[in-house]
């Protein structure tokens, strides 16, 4: 019975490790590809304002202040 429990916990651990790891890798890919996309868009059209989709959000703390010009 004790041995049986070990196999049960190992099975659960492995499953959630794989799913969690995959989800994390997806999030990292979204961030990395997103950053590269923004850089290429700026390179293509340096004077343009970054286009936002309705689902994009702006990090307000990173906005330029009037003093900074």
């Amino acid at each position: 019975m004790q041995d049986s429990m070990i196999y049960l916990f190992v099975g659960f651990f492995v499953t959630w490790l794989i799913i969690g790891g995959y989800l994390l890798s997806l999030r990292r890919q979204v961030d990395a590809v997103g950053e590269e996309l923004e850089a290429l868009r700026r390179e293509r059209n340096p004077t343009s304002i970054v286009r936002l989709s309705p689902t994009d959000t702006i990090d307000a703390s990173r906005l330029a202040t009037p003093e900074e010009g």
Partner: protein
Amino acid sequence: MTLTTVRRGRATWERALGWLSVGLVALSIGMVFLYAPSDRVQGAVQRLFYLHLPAAWLAYLSFFIIFLCSVAYLVRRQPRWDRLARSAAVVGFVFTTIVLLTGSIWGRPIWGTWWTWDARLTTTLILWFIYLAYFMLRAWVRDTERAARYAAVLGIVGFVDVPIIHMSVRWWRTLHPEPIVVRAEGPAMPESMLLTLAITLVAFIVLYLVLLIEAYRVERMKDELAELRLQLSG
């Protein structure tokens, strides 16, 4: 500071789906360990069934999605079908890996071995290799349109393995038990186990959707990136 930093956000319904999956997964784990009764013969390890079965069904579902998207791509030639097939393949590969690993871990104390060349196990391993071949094909063929076309053909042909896996326990003498949930006489398990399985299955389906949406987002962005690079280099 001249540029505005943009953080790519997710729609409200996507966030809601993510939180729903977290809640359902927590509920299903609670039910598996605290509500579902222990099997009299196999003991606690039988609870791996609640991971093994939903993962197997979602691996089949992935290949069904690939099959449908592959047909749609070959008929319509719209990149979005290929993109969805690609996304379903990655998620399906993850779930097939889980099926093989949980089956192996479950088999060790019950059958006394980590692996046996049983018909069900072998056909599932073949499915895993088909997924692998699908990724290798895409990696090797440089021309994206041609890669999508070849992958679509493999996606259609590869789907043949899914009904073979399902029927393997009937067609051949196997160590793997016959279906106990989907069968003509009705499920052969107590209601408490069925309810736990139902909740776990719903949790896995919602989780699957979250992963598929995220994988599709990555594929769409990669396509956009490739197009932009082409524009800049040309």
